[in-house]
């Protein structure tokens, strides 16, 4: 399940590094609140963790930043994402196809968010570069990307069912 949740976040943010941060924060929160878990089956455990994960994701969509509070409290380091992991994760999350789908769907969202998403997700520029090209702060660029992703959540979510029910365990 640990891997499938990592793929889940990567898919929903179209960004392995943001996905990694959301994933790590989710498991840190799950660890902190494990005493409140009342289920007994694997399905209940999965549902419980995913409930935490969806809240973490919603917060990211809203704020445009990942708050690593639970990781901070537990003194957890952000795990590094090596090249091999990055490649596997992109493949598992189907980021290539997703970028194409997002590119086609961009016409439906407001101008600034559309531009930010195109630069970051479709063209693959770094956040500082996105910010420079748009003439805004990096923080504002991140916020535009996350809000654009939220707007396009329907596109991301529908395709996401494929890998959520795939063979990642």
């Amino acid at each position, binding site marked *: 399940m*640990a*891997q499938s949740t*990592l*793929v889940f976040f990567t898919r929903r943010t179209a960004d392995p590094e943001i996905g*990694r941060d959301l994933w*790590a924060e989710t*498991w*840190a929160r799950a*660890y902190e609140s494990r005493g409140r878990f009342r289920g007994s*089956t*694997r*399905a*209940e455990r999965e549902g419980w963790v995913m409930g935490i994960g969806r809240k973490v994701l919603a917060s990211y969509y809203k704020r445009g930043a990942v708050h690593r509070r639970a990781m901070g409290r*537990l*003194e*957890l*380091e952000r*795990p*590094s*994402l*090596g090249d*091999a*992991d990055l490649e*596997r*994760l992109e*493949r*598992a999350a*189907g980021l290539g*196809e997703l970028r194409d789908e997002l590119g086609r769907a961009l016409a439906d969202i407001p101008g600034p968010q559309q531009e930010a998403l195109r630069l970051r997700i479709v063209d693959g520029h770094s956040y500082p570069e996105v910010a420079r090209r748009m003439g805004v702060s990096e923080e504002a660029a991140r916020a535009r990307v996350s809000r654009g992703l939220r707007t396009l959540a329907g596109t991301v979510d529908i395709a996401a069912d*494929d*890998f*959520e*029910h*795939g*063979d*990642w*365990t």
Partner: protein
Amino acid sequence: MSAGAHDELRIVDAYWAQLRAVDARLLRRAQARTRRRQLGRTLAFALLALLLAAAAAVAAKALFGDDAPRSFPSQDSTLGSVRPGEARLLSVRRPDPDGGPPWGLRVSRTDRKQICLQIGRVVDGRLVAMGVAGAFGNDGRAHALPIEQLSCTSDVAGTLPARIGMAEPITRSGLIPSSRLGANIGCVGPVERRAIVLGPGSAREYIRRARARGDAAAVAEGTRQLASAERRLRSLPPACAKADLRTVIAGIAGSNVVSVTLTDNGVEQRVTTKRSEDGAYVFVVLGHRADPGTLTARFRDGLTCSLGGSYLRPSPPPSPACRRAFARQP
């Protein structure tokens, strides 16, 4: 689109290693805190927690050793097994609202350093369940209860530094609704009944999801769960009438506590506690109650401390004076 399950991501192992290290670090800190508390008794008790109860090593030892129903099977759980000779029926008793044998308490110690309380009815010096409210075919007889660890607290380094207390839903027979005694339970409470009714549906949903992701092991596990849930549903005991449900409030308040009073809807019940039994007390109220009233402990020096609301989250929390009073008991 998806990678195979064998295609492991190293980042997962790396992060898990960090979490395991955190777990070990927090455990070490908790153990260090416990040691400091035992040695200096300078730290206030770990707040809130459960009921009034508190007891210490010397007095705790007096609780064990003579009841020892060695022939009873001991519950196999993460709490450990009860060691031979380390279970004792206490002398505290409370009548049932409908009469019959009184209610009592058994304290036991496990091989994993847990001190546990068990409640039941008492007949001839033994903790029993009665054949009433549908239990044991309504035979009206007393049935000895196996030792079960219902409410436990750590007994690190052989002392009893923490408080024990519980407000347990139970049937009039003296059986908890989720008892291992299965078919003998007679009737079940509303929470347990709902869990049994919804069980097969949950298992089917689990299997559906496991099949969708091609997880054969999970499908097999789900199939076993489904068979078990369907068995439980087929033998679903009837819902308990309110008159057959009880909420038992019990605990060990500590050897400096002389009495414990339960105030429920303006009605007071009082238990005079014994120093030799670390202030053990038990109350029984009718029905299944999430908030069964306010408990007040009176200390030898006249200090009184009350806890209301849910006992797991007392509101308001005990005052600093009360926390100190509970903590300083020998």
